[in-house]
C-alpha cells in the first residue's frame, strides 16, 4: 500500500487546505517527512514551525518572560502564594476558590469540590502564560472557562496537590 492511500496520505490531505497558501503562511518553508514509506515526501504542513514553536514555549527565556508578566498581573496575596508554593488561588464568583497549578493538564483545582479542570491555550505557550490566561478567564470570564474546560469530577489530587492545598490553609471537601 502506498502512502497516498494509507493513513499518512489521509493525514496529509486532512491538513492540506487547497485554498490555503502554506508557503506564505509558514515563511516559505515546507516540511519534509523522512522515514520508511515517506522518504522525501513534501508533506505540505509545517512540521518545522510546529516543533520550533513547541521548543520555544519550553525554553527558559520564554518561561522567564512569561513568569515576569504573570508576577506583574498577580495581586499581593497571589504573588506570595506563587513564591511560596509555585501555585496561586483565584476567587470565582459563585463557584468558590480555585488553585492554579504549574503544569499543563488538569491544573485548575476547585478547593471546594476537589474537581480538576483542564483548559489549554491552542497555541504553544510557556506554563506561566497558561496560568495567567486561566487566572484572567476565571476572574473575568468564568462562563467561557467552564464551557470549554474538561472536568474530572473524582478527587484526582495526588499527594503533591493535597500538600499544596493543605499548605494554602484549606482542605479538600470529599
Amino acid at each position: 500500500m502506498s502512502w497516498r492511500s494509507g493513513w499518512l496520505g489521509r493525514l496529509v490531505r486532512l491538513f492540506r487546505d487547497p485554498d490555503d497558501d502554506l508557503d506564505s503562511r509558514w515563511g516559505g518553508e515546507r516540511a519534509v517527512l523522512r522515514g520508511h514509506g515517506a522518504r522525501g515526501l513534501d508533506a505540505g504542513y509545517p512540521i518545522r514551525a510546529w516543533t520550533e514553536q513547541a521548543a520555544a514555549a519550553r525554553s527558559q527565556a520564554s518561561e522567564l518572560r512569561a513568569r515576569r508578566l504573570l508576577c506583574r498581573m498577580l495581586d499581593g496575596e497571589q504573588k506570595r502564594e506563587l513564591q511560596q508554593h509555585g501555585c496561586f488561588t483565584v476567587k470565582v464568583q459563585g463557584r468558590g476558590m480555585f488553585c492554579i497549578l504549574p503544569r499543563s493538564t488538569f491544573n485548575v483545582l476547585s478547593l471546594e469540590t476537589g474537581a480538576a479542570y483542564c483548559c489549554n491555550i491552542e497555541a504553544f505557550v510557556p506554563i506561566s502564560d497558561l496560568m495567567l490566561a486561566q487566572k484572567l478567564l476565571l476572574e473575568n470570564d468564568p462562563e467561557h472557562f467552564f464551557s470549554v474546560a474538561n472536568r474530572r469530577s473524582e478527587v484526582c489530587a495526588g499527594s503533591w496537590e493535597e500538600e499544596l492545598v493543605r499548605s494554602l490553609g484549606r482542605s479538600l471537601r470529599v
Partner: protein
Amino acid sequence: MKTIRILDSSGDRVVEFDDGEATSLARREAQALFERMLSSGSTAFKVNRGEGRPDEKVTDFSALENETIVVPRVVGG
C-alpha cells in the same frame, strides 16, 4: 501609548500604538490584528487599569486602555 500583549511561544508579543492619531498606520495595524485575533476565538482583557479597578474582558478596540492581554483561543485539554 497603548500596549497589546499577545500570549505566544516566546512569552508574549508586544504591539504598541499611539491612540492620538486615529488614522496612524500603527493604530490601524493594531486594530486589524486585535479584530483578527478576536474573530479567531481569542479573548482580550484590560489589565493594570490603575486606581484599583479590576481587570476586565474587552471586545471593542476603541475601549482598550493602557495595557491589554490577548489570550489565544482556549480548548478543553
